């Protein structure tokens, strides 16, 4: 499709600014003014609408396609929560309203939302206190790493590194590193568990924390998790829980009960808030009681008169990690979702997420290698296309063929430790009919890989574009549109 800039015509307008209703009292000195114009697109409202309407139609999305993108939990996002987030009293509320008078209870409804969310998340995870500030999962990890650092600083420890299994999500090592830690990587054994011997050998005074996903990114719940935690604690390290996979164990297990000290959640995944194109997320962080003094300020407290207030006086707090209280509208939608599902509904989420993933695994295990020894998984299953790759049909080709069939591909090539990984996370909101249709195509591809590998290699044929040249993109780095004028220059 043409770019909006290519549709631009000098002088076209979509939106009209209201007329000036006050006298002109001053002029801004020229030295402060821009001399180059903005060269923003100039289009009519219809141009704009037709452009983005048709652009949107080039995407797959949960609302239009099955989207089993492993680790990303692309479940159905309810519509009623949008309505709630759109309530004027929330949508138009300035975040500083709650800070304009230190003693007065402004913005009570919004503060109550934050407080209730923290309470609910504490109960769901078994943590003692939560902050809603972090703006995504990785941001939660960084917040967690900062808390780890603050804790050790407070204790007078000077640990050097964070222990992370090699199956971990890339954000874990990145977050630890950014917070100033080295990263020590532990290999995964054939069962999909972190190697305990290697792990033990790295514990010691230099270990600040252990960062784990549980169930981990291979879709397996490590039954030795309590031992791992005990060992860490004995060595003086903290246990960090990457909550991206909490959707597998809601109502079954809680990180707090398993021995974790710090938890981040991905509200936009587990609690079903839209994050089209990659965000916004929300990554609240919870901690056990002994770490609560390190949480970011301000914190939302409930006073004895049942009003809510912002509290700043936590001298050991790591400080703010976001300008306000987190991605409020996302948090609000997650709270509405939690309240809608309730105890039973949340438990069902995990039960059916796990059922669906196991169903896919069971139906596909005769056609694809199963990444780890078990024939069972939690909320997602990791297969390998290593067999198919021998005939030239790689995980990437399988992904592209699925696109032609109207299915968003699973996550591919992650976790990095699995060759030709296909990581399938169906989520609980998908029906058996949808899974059956998906499985049928996956089996078709497996067979095709033996008989007509070229068919997969040429896919997709029916998408708006065929396979794209990523190398060219990186080499030529065309990352913004230039008018023909600029190009010539």
């Amino acid at each position, binding site marked *: 499709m043409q770019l909006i800039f290519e549709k631009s015509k000098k002088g076209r*307008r979509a939106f009209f600014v*209201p007329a000036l209703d006050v006298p002109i009292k001053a002029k801004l000195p020229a030295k402060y*003014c821009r001399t180059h114009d*903005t060269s923003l697109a100039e289009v009519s409202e219809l141009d704009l609408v037709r452009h983005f309407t048709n652009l949107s139609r080039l995407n797959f*999305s949960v609302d239009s396609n099955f*989207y089993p993108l492993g680790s990303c939990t692309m479940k159905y996002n309810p519509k009623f929560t949008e309505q709630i987030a759109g309530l004027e009293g929330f949508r138009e509320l300035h975040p500083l309203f709650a800070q304009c008078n230190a003693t007065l209870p402004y913005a009570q409804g919004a503060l109550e939302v934050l407080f209730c969310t923290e309470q609910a998340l504490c109960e769901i995870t078994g943590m003692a206190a939560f902050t809603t500030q972090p703006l995504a999962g990785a941001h939660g990890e960084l917040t967690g790493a900062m808390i780890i650092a603050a804790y050790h600083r407070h204790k007078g420890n000077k640990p050097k590194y964070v222990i992370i299994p090699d199956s971990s999500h890339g954000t874990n090592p990145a977050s630890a590193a950014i917070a100033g830690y080295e990263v020590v990587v532990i290999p995964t054994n054939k069962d999909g568990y972190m190697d305990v011997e290697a792990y033990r050998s790295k514990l010691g005074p230099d270990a600040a924390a252990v960062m784990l996903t549980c169930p981990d990114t291979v879709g397996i719940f490590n039954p030795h998790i309590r031992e791992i935690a005990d060992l860490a604690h004995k060595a003086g390290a903290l246990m960090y829980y990457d909550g991206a996979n909490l959707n597998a164990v809601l109502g079954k297990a809680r990180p707090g009960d398993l021995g974790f000290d710090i938890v981040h959640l991905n509200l936009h995944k587990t609690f079903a808030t839209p994050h089209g194109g990659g965000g916004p997320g929300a990554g609240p962080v919870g901690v056990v009681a002994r770490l609560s003094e390190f949480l970011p300020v301000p914190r939302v407290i409930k006073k004895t008169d049942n009003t809510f207030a912002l509290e700043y006086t936590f001298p050991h707090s790591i400080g703010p990690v976001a300008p306000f209280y987190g991605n409020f509208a996302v948090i609000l939608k997650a709270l509405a979702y939690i309240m809608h599902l309730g*105890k039973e509904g949340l438990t069902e989420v995990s*039960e059916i997420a796990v059922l669906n993933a196991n169903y896919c695994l069971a139906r596909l295990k005769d056609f694809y290698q199963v990444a780890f020894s078990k024939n069972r998984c939690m909320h997602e299953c990791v297969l390998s296309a290593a067999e198919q790759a021998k005939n030239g049909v790689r995980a990437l080709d399988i992904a592209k063929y699925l696109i032609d069939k109207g299915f968003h591909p699973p996550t591919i090539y992650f976790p990095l430790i699995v060759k030709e990984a296909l990581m399938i996370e169906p989520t609980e909101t998908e029906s058996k009919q949808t899974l059956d249709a998906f499985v049928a195509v996956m089996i078709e591809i497996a067979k095709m890989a033996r008989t007509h590998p070229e068919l997969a290699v040429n896919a997709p044929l029916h998408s708006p574009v*065929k396979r794209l040249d990523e190398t060219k993109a990186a080499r030529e780095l065309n990352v913004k549109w230039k008018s023909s004028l600029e190009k010539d220059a």
Partner: protein
Amino acid sequence: MSFIPHTTQEIKEMLEAIGAPSIEELFKDIAPPLRLKSFHIPEGKSELELDRYFKTLSQKGESGIVNFIGAGFYEHYIPAVVDALAGRSEFYTAYTPYQPECAQGWLQAMYEYQTSICALTGMDVSNASLYDGGTALYEAAMMAIRLTGRNKVIVDCGVNYTYRTMLYAYTKNLKIEFVEIPVVHGSSCRKDIYALLDDRAAAVILQNPNFFGVVDDYSDIVHKAHACGAVAIGSVYPISLGILKTPAEMGIDIATGEGQSLGLPLSFGGPYLGFMAVRKEYIRQMPGRIVGATVDKDGKTGYVLTLQAREQHIRREKATSNICSNEALCALRALMYLCALGKEGLRELALLNFYKSEFAKTCLDTIPGVVVKRSSPTFNEFTVMLPHDAEKVFERMVKKGFACGFPLGRAYKGMENYLLVAVTEKRTKDEIVAFAKALEEVVCS
């Protein structure tokens, strides 16, 4: 009420296919001692009940208040077309476009967003969004440190105080030296900054308009910074760029900012949008997703995520940043907003903000005991000195239906009697006049 489609019969069939006697059996790795100790979540409530509950909650607090609070986050009008289009579910319920062939809508939109941010700031290249203006500034500082190999960062106190606090919080475990330069008469102090710009300086961080709404031209500081090999970082307010000198025109190396004003509701603090645009040479150190144009097998133009080797999912602990989920939907809104306004619209809007706030100044200036600070030009926000404590005045003004601005005492010691007043296009002449009248009543009684 859990959006689960399965019937009992289907669950049975699926368990059979799996060869499991029950769902419970699928959880057997979570042995009894590992099971949860408590799960006191109330029973699920229906949509109707929750709609009612949250409506009530949303009305708890102040409603119908005329707002003059800004302080970096502004109540601008959002064209209806932005809500209508951003809600298209093919945008709304997709994820990061890892598979470009089924995500061209998103990828092209991000490419257009990047182009628009460059058009706005004048910079060479933009990423596809960061969390917010504060984290964007922090990422910029980290970039400068990596680029220069130095670790002294000069921070002008005209930079949003929360952003500064965030910066220090994030880096507490690192070895970075921050030097804050106090603002003099609302503007950044050249003398002090010049003095600090030496061969240890990694970066100087500036904001325009600064926290007091004051407009500046930092070309001189940027020049000095470059002379000593430091990186100039500027946080900007996008609406103001409709008329203000761009970071590029000042020579700034890394421009960042909060994109909330570009079509995002205030929503009590988020989701917002961090943007970042940099010199071409720095693109490989820039955090966040970047979309690039390329061609498909048939030579047709298409778009992909590019330079992924900078990112955590590939580079892991060596990545330029840990960011994964970003603020894509917010960036999409910003793009739509910028296209809706267009070149002329944004300019007119910026002027309208400027004229309205100047009008407000003249109205407030006539109030006995109230002094509008006029030492430097401002954009759409300005400082007012009151005869009493600003928080007290705020309290009394709320009762009259006005959120009269941000009391500066919380951010700047000694400014307890100062108020920061923002005036956007949403404030009508009548509201401004009524505001002045109410303030007069409050301060003179």
